[in-house]
């Protein structure tokens, strides 16, 4: 038995219920595994849901080729340790056109290397349902998401046409051409995710813990230089600073925070005391007004 606090136990049970409803109702589900803390919790819940069997679906990672090396290593180790199938997909067309986060605005880069890539991967695999780690507390348009988020043909999200969800009942009956994003962590907050990681003793990518890292400052945000592809502004060189990440994405687009929190206890403490919202470090969210809603309409999870 684990020592989960009562509200985490309720959230865990709710998530397991959602996983089971989706597994029972959809033909070919897949779990969108982005390697971050939310994916870590999502995968752990999936393993609990179907235990002693393995989760009856593969993991899918959309690799933009701009992820931190630590993330890729963690991803491969996780799939291996748990004996799960891992599908890694990159939009090779975008790669061939050299779409990258330095030469293109975040909206273009994200659309090609993340949104389009995700659509390609889902279509190629013939998946009718994709589990994602999105939470309603993250952002305005996500605050209105359903647990079963229906996407019309072409993976489009139409906020006005979302299915009503009443009580614990989840209707997964698909119309023609429809697919679904399933969000088992809908009612979790960032604080819940960290407390759960702590209580369940889950392994997360080391980037979440403070360490001396090579950092450059850009528009008031701290970027960690992950490899030689970094474009420096004139006269700027990386300096070592003790930083960590609250959220992980593509390294040129995800800001680090200065912190001394180098273990799970201090990260939980810092998160619960946080005075700035989590996605403040996500550069793609601030590109244009309503950026997240636009991305979701295009098929982003």
């Amino acid at each position, binding site marked *: *038995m*684990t020592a989960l*606090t*009562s*509200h*985490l136990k*309720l959230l865990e*049970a709710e998530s*397991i219920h959602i996983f*089971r*409803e989706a597994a*029972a109702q959809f033909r070919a589900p897949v779990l969108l595994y982005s390697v971050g803390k939310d994916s870590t919790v999502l995968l752990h819940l999936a*393993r*609990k*849901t*179907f*235990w*002693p*069997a393995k989760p009856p679906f593969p993991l899918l990672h959309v690799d933009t080729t701009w992820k931190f090396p630590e993330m890729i290593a963690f991803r491969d180790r996780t799939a291996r340790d748990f004996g799960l199938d891992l599908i890694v997909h990159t939009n090779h067309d975008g790669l061939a056109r050299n779409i990258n986060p330095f030469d293109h605005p975040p909206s273009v880069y994200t659309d090609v290397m993340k949104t389009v890539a995700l659509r390609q991967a889902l279509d190629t695999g013939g998946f009718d349902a994709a589990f994602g780690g999105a939470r*309603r*507390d993250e*952002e*305005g*348009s996500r*605050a*209105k998401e359903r647990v079963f988020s229906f996407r019309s043909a072409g993976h489009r999200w139409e*906020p*006005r046409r*979302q299915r*009503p*969800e*009443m*009580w*614990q*009942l989840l*209707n997964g*009956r698909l*119309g023609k051409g*429809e697919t679904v994003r399933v969000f088992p962590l*809908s*009612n979790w*907050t960032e*604080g*819940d995710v960290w*407390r759960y990681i*702590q*209580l369940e003793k889950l392994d997360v990518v080391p980037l979440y813990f403070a360490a001396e890292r090579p950092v450059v400052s850009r528009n008031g945000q701290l970027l960690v230089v992950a490899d030689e592809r970094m474009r420096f502004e004139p006269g700027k060189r990386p300096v070592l600073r003790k930083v960590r990440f609250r959220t992980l994405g593509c390294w040129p687009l995800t800001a680090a925070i200065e912190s001394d929190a180098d273990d*799970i*206890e201090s990260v*939980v*403490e810092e998160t*619960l*005391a*946080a*005075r*700035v*919202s989590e996605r*403040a470090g996500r550069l793609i969210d601030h590109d244009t007004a*309503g950026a997240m*809603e636009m991305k979701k309409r295009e098929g982003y999870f």
Partner: protein
Amino acid sequence: MHVAALRDEVSVGPRTVRATQAGALVKLLTCGSVDDGKSTLIGRLLWDAAGVTDDQRAAVALASQNRAVNGEKIDFSLLLDGLQAEREQGITIDIAWRYFETPGRRFIIIDSPGHEQYTRNMATGASHADIAILLVDARHGAKRQTRRHAAICDLVGIKKVVLAVNKMDAVGWSEARYRDIERDFLAMAGSFNFAQVMTIPVAALTGDNVVYRSTAMPWYAGPTLLDYLEAVDPVAELVDAPFRLPVQLVLRAAGDFRGYAGTVTSGRIKVGDRIVDARSGLGATLRRIASMDGDMPVASKGDAVTLVLDTDLDISRGAVLSETARRPVNADVIEARLVWLSETPFDPEAGYLLRTATDLTPVTSMSVSALVDFETLASTPAHACGVNDIADCRVLLGRATAIDLFRDLPGTGNFVLVSAIDGATVAGGVITWAQAGAPAVGDNVLVLNRALLARGVCADLGDSPADEAEFNRRAQEVAVLLRSAGVPVLIEL
């Protein structure tokens, strides 16, 4: 390390909050219209009770300066601004979910629209809540929509309701005014099945009695809104409720493992207890409650578990595992009260499926018998219903399914109605009556058909559309009278 050991005092907003082990989860519905100050109340609650981060505070403070609303420093309703951008795109009629926690509790605010044309959204939001905050403007008191909100909360099973009498500042903090509103509301609430009704005088704009105790209303000795929310027991559980577990999946694994996975919707079960599959009547003894964290001795309401039995029942998803004494009804016919959610009205010719806890049952035929009037809460005979209507209906199922009455066991007594054509969720409802065994003509179901009615009750009517409407009206009226006398009736015109 356990989070309970985290003890540092952290300053979050104006209130000092102790970062400690969070308590239970409370799902809170807020309803009322914009005019009642709902956004301001939620904003104030989040602001004063620590649900707001610094970048959000700064953004709101800046926007408030630009607007200079009310000549006030801060416009708390701007905290819901993320949603305001969507308002321009026409989707704020939807439910929004917000989260905050206090030292004692983790709260989920289900913010739902109050206007009549969004009844379906409100009902959808309300179905997830333990507690409802109904908001009224102290200058106007409980309005017709307050009664409607209370009726919807009651319909979907909310047991605890708080009336927040807002804008007390606008009535000079008058106790007399508050007591009038309180009296009216308590009288109204008496006609519902609420277990607990509370009224609190507040002023969201100034924060009085929201998080901080008002000094302007010394005559009020009750809790502030947040005090109440932190103290209330969100669970309205029956003592000794019968065990139910609707089976979601049958899990198979190596070593002949076979487990029935599902969430306990009612009661509790322990290893060694006898259980029965309600549909087949087959029984077994519970051998294990298996989990990745080790086996458990007991499972209770809300637990998502995997049950291993001593004998394998040949059952699948849709079965309901029950205690042996008090079993579900193996229903072939149900009567229900539902809220119509779809823009496409009810069509007796369309194909529908009944989605109960985990079962999906084809509907053979369905008829609407009445619409509920929110003003009077009375039923008006009707045979049609459309979006936002609350209707009473009767459903004949293509095969039997295990269900309970909603008022006894909500988790196995609710359903959604699904379109067989496109899979859309067209209605959500609660089961008010159920019967096992197919109804047969001449058995105990009276079939009201055209010939039967034309002979006498409708002998004076012709073929005009007006007469046809009158024919239908009389048919429904006759059915209502017969049903109230306990005679099951089917209308087949």
